[in-house]
């Protein structure tokens, strides 16, 4: 009888203990969940929103770059001659001056942007950096798609321009072909460039290309 009582008491004690432990575990669960919720609501979401605003600012600043590169690849504009005092050539297709490089024809697929950019940038940079020792071997390569005498002349002009540029700059790897459609926009844009390590070009004459609304760059700085 006594042992049963004692046994019963012990069981009750264990039940009590278990109940308490259950309650305690539930409470810890609740407190952890509460902590998680408050952490997410108070720290993480504002952080993410701030990150989003900063990223938006970055995108706003870099949007001009995007349009420039897009036009390098997609649009029928030659970006060379924006800063150079060249004859007002307005080549239709961005041509490459490097032999063996695939000549860039106007493609409008957004996916080819990078490839076109590659070659087009090669055009730009090659145009800038190309040494005058270019023989006429390039012409058949370049003229593959076009085979026009005008393109030959354009290429010769480009080489002369590259010569001039090289003389002016020495070697400036930071020169980027600028999509220019109007002189004012170019001068203003150059004012913007001055803030960057890019070298300033004294020549303000620019070849007017086929003005497209996308190429006009409006900057408030005036050089």
């Amino acid at each position, binding site marked *: 009888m006594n042992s049963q009582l004692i046994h019963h008491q012990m069981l009750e004690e264990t039940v009590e203990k278990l109940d308490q432990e259950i309650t305690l575990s539930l409470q810890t669960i609740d407190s952890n969940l509460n902590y998680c919720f408050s952490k997410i609501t108070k720290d993480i979401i504002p952080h993410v929103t701030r990150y989003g605003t900063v990223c938006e600012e970055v995108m706003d600043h870099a949007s001009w770059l995007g349009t420039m590169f897009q036009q390098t690849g997609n649009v029928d504009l030659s970006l060379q001659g924006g800063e150079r005092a060249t004859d007002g050539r307005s080549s239709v297709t961005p041509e490459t001056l490097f032999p063996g490089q695939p000549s860039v024809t106007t493609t409008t697929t957004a996916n080819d942007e990078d490839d076109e*950019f590659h070659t087009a940038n*090669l055009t730009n940079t090659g145009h800038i950096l190309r040494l005058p020792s270019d023989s006429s071997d390039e012409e058949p390569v370049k003229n593959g798609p076009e085979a026009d005498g005008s393109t030959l002349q354009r290429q010769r002009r480009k080489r002369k321009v590259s010569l001039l540029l090289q003389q002016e700059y020495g070697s400036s790897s930071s020169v980027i072909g600028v999509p220019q459609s109007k002189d004012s926009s170019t001068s203003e844009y150059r004012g913007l460039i001055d803030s960057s390590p890019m070298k300033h070009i004294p020549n303000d004459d620019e070849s007017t290309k086929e003005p497209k609304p996308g190429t006009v760059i409006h900057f408030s700085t005036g050089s």
Partner: protein
Amino acid sequence: MENPYEQVQLNILSRIIGNIDRLNQSVATLNQELENVNRRNRNLEIMGQICENYHNSTQFNLKATGSQKPPL
């Protein structure tokens, strides 16, 4: 009356349920915000790739023409 712990446990359970609900809502909001940011960053990502390609091509061109100068 016999099981006071049950009442307490039920209380705690109900609070847990409420907390989980709020947590779910906040996580959904977080997910939405992250999706927005991700959407806006896709263009930036492409831009970065373009710039990197540009850099690579300029480097290659400079090396090819031999006009690359050593770093200052």
